[in-house]
C-alpha cells in the first residue's frame, strides 16, 4: 500500500482525508465508500490528489469524487479551486477533451412505442451520425464560420438551423463560454476542428437510447419532465481533435516555461500558469473556444438525432416532443463565485471528470429548474444506462458545486481487451437486451462493462454525501459507439 493510502483518515462514511504534509498547501478529501476505496488498490490517484494540493493559490481542499481514477497530473474525478490573484490554471486540470460532456433529450415516446423499433433506430443513428476515429462531419467549416463556432458555441449551431433557442435555455452557460478568443487557438487546432464538427468521436463517447426505469424524487423529476417508462436519448461527446490540440499545445508551452513559476512541481503533467499571467489568460481564452466547439458539436448531434427519430418512426416533431433536458460538461475550468470565509469570492474551479451540481435558486439555473436544482447527468459504461441527479446546497458549500461524472475506469484498456478476448461482446449485450453498434475495431472490447466501477455505487456515495441527489435512473436499450 502506498504511503498516501495508509495515511488516509476516514472523516465519515463518505469522506477520506489526505492530511496536509510536505509541500501540500491544503489537505485532500476523497469522496468514496469503503468498497470503492478498497477497489482502488494500486491506483496512484490518491497521490495525484495530494500533488494537486501543491499548486499555488489552491483554496480549502484538493477534492476527488468517488469515480476517481488515475489521470495525467490531476486525477480524473478531481476538483480544485484557485484564487484569481495568486492561483493557477492548468490544462492538465481540465483534461485533453475540453468540455467533454453529456446532454439528455427527453421524448413523448413510451417504451411500448419503440420496443420493436430500437434496432431500426440504432441502425439509422449509426448511419446518420458520423462516429469513429478521425471521422469527418457532414460539413467542412470555412475559416470564418469556424471562428464563429469558437466564439458563439451552441448559438452558432442554432442560428444555422441545428435546433431551437429553447435548447440554449437548458444548456450549461447557454452553450457559450465568455472570453473565447480564436487568436489563442493554434493553426493546428483550427485545422483539426475544420472537418470534425458534428461527429461523435471514438473511445468512451456514445449516443444511447434509454428508458426511464426508476424515479427517486418525484418533484425534481416532474420539473425535469421525466416519468417512468419514458424514452430518452443520452449524448456523450466533446471537443474532438480541436480540444485535444488546444490542451496539447498549451501543456507543451507550460512545460517549457515550468521554471518561471518558481515552484517545484511533483509531476510535469501538472504544468500550469498563473491565472493573472498572459499565458494563463491565453489558455483560458483558447479553452473557452474548445468548450464552445464542444457545445456546438453536441447541439448538432442532437439535431440529427431528432431528424433520425422523425424519419425512422415517421412522426413529426410535435408527436416526438424531443426536448433538451440539460447539457452539462465534465472537463472544464470556470470562474465561479463561492462564499469563502464568509466572503463572496470568485475562483477558478477545475473540474476534470467532475460535473457542476449547482443548488436550487442559483442564478445560473434556467427558471424551470430553479426550485429543484441543476440537472446533473451521469453516464454509465457502455449499455448500462445513466442517472439524472440534482445539484444541492451541500455541493455548493463543500465541493465548489461539483459532483461525480460517471462510473470511472477500473481496468486499463489493455486489461479490458485481454478480459474480453474470444468473447462476442455485441452478442453478450444483445442477450441482455441492448443493441450496440460500434465503428472502432477494438472499442467494444475496451469498453466492456466490467472495465468500469459500478455506477450505482458511485452515485450512492454522492447521494449519501449530499453533494447531489438522485432523481431518476435510466436503462440503456441501444447504443452507438465511436
Amino acid at each position, binding site marked *: 500500500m502506498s504511503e498516501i493510502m495508509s495515511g488516509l483518515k476516514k472523516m465519515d462514511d463518505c469522506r477520506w482525508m489526505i492530511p496536509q504534509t510536505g509541500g501540500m498547501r491544503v489537505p485532500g478529501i476523497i469522496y468514496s465508500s469503503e468498497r470503492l476505496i478498497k477497489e482502488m488498490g494500486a*491506483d496512484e490517484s490518491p497521490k495525484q490528489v495530494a500533488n494537486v494540493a501543491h499548486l499555488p493559490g489552491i483554496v480549502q481542499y484538493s477534492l476527488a469524487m468517488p469515480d476517481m*481514477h*488515475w*489521470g*495525467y*497530473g490531476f486525477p*480524473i474525478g478531481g476538483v480544485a479551486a484557485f484564487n484569481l490573484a495568486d492561483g493557477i490554471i492548468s490544462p492538465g486540470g481540465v483534461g*485533453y477533451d475540453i468540455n467533454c460532456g453529456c446532454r439528455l433529450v427527453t421524448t413523448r415516446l413510451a417504451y411500448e412505442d419503440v420496443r420493436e423499433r430500437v434496432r431500426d433506430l440504432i441502425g439509422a443513428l449509426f448511419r446518420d451520425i458520423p462516429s*469513429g*476515429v*478521425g471521422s469527418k462531419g457532414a460539413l467542412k467549416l470555412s475559416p470564418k464560420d469556424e471562428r464563429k463556432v469558437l466564439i458563439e458555441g451552441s448559438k452558432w449551431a442554432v442560428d444555422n438551423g441545428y435546433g431551437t433557442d429553447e435548447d440554449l435555455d437548458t444548456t450549461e452557460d447557454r452553450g457559450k463560454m465568455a472570453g473565447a478568443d480564436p487568436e489563442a487557438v493554434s493553426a*493546428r487546432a483550427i*485545422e*483539426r476542428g475544420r472537418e470534425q464538427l458534428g461527429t461523435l468521436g*471514438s*473511445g468512451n463517447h456514445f449516443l444511447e437510447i434509454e428508458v426511464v426505469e426508476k424515479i427517486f424524487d418525484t418533484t425534481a423529476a416532474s420539473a425535469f419532465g421525466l416519468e417512468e417508462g419514458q424514452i430518452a436519448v443520452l449524448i456523450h461527446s466533446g471537443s474532438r*481533435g480541436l480540444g*485535444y*490540440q488546444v*490542451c*496539447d499545445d498549451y*501543456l*507543451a508551452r507550460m*512545460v*517549457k516555461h515550468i521554471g518561471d513559476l518558481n515552484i517545484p512541481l511533483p*509531476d*510535469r*503533467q501538472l*504544468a500550469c500558469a498563473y491565472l493573472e499571467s498572459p499565458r494563463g489568460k491565453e489558455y483560458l481564452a483558447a479553452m473557452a473556444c474548445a468548450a464552445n466547439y464542444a457545445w456546438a458539436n453536441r447541439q448538432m448531434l442532437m439535431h440529427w438525432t431528432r431528424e433520425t427519430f422523425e424519419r425512422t418512426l415517421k412522426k413529426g416533431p410535435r408527436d416526438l416532443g424531443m426536448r433538451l433536458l440539460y447539457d452539462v460538461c465534465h472537463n472544464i475550468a470556470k470562474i465561479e463565485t463561492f462564499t469563502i470565509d464568509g466572503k463572496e469570492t470568485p475562483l477558478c474551479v477545475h473540474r476534470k471528470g467532475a460535473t457542476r451540481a449547482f443548488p436550487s435558486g442559483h442564478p445560473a439555473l434556467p427558471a424551470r429548474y430553479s426550485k429543484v436544482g441543476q440537472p446533473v447527468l451521469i453516464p454509465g459504461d457502455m449499455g448500462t444506462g445513466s442517472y439524472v441527479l440534482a445539484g444541492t446546497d451541500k455541493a455548493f458549500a463543500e465541493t465548489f458545486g461539483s459532483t461525480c461524472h460517471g462510473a470511472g*475506469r477500473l*481496468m*486499463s*484498456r*489493455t*486489461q479490458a481487451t485481454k478480459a474480453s478476448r474470444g468473447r462476442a461482446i455485441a452478442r453478450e449485450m444483445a442477450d441482455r437486451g441492448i443493441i450496440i453498434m460500434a465503428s*472502432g*475495431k*477494438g472499442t467494444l472490447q475496451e469498453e466492456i462493462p466490467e472495465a468500469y466501477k459500478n455506477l450505482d455505487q458511485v452515485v450512492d456515495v454522492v447521494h449519501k454525501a449530499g453533494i447531489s441527489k438522485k432523481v431518476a435512473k435510466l436503462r440503456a436499450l441501444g447504443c452507438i459507439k465511436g
Partner: protein
Amino acid sequence: MDRYRVFDHTADLGVEIYGKTAKELFANAAFALFDIITDLNRVRAIEEKMITAEGEGWDDLLVNYLREVLYLFNGEGLLLKEYSIMEIDPRHLEGKVSGEVFDPSRHTINTEIKAVTYHQATVREAPDMWMGRVIFDV
C-alpha cells in the same frame, strides 16, 4: 531485440522503447506509435515529410518529437511507415518520415492514440542500449 514493448497503465497505454543509439531509439519510438495505431504491412511509404523537434533534454525531446509525429496523423491523416533521424542532440532533432494518407478502404485503425503525454516520460542511456518510456492517451 524488440523495438518496443507495451506496458499496462490504467486508462492508457505505456510503451518502453529500445535502440542501440539515440537515433535508433527515436526512430523506434515513431514505429511503436504507428505499429499500435495500424497494421503497417498495409501502409506504403510514398509521401515524405521532414520533422524537427526541440526539447529541454532527452525526456522532453522524446515527447515533443512524438507529438510532432502524431500530429502528422491526427492533423494531416498520414500513416507513417519509415522513420530516420538525421541529426540529434538532447535539445534538437531532425528527421525524415514517410508513409501515406489514411484510406479507410485499405487501412485499419486498431487503436486510436489521442495524445502523447509528459507523464513519467524518460530516456535512459546505457552502453550499447538506449531505453525510453512514454505514456499515450488512447
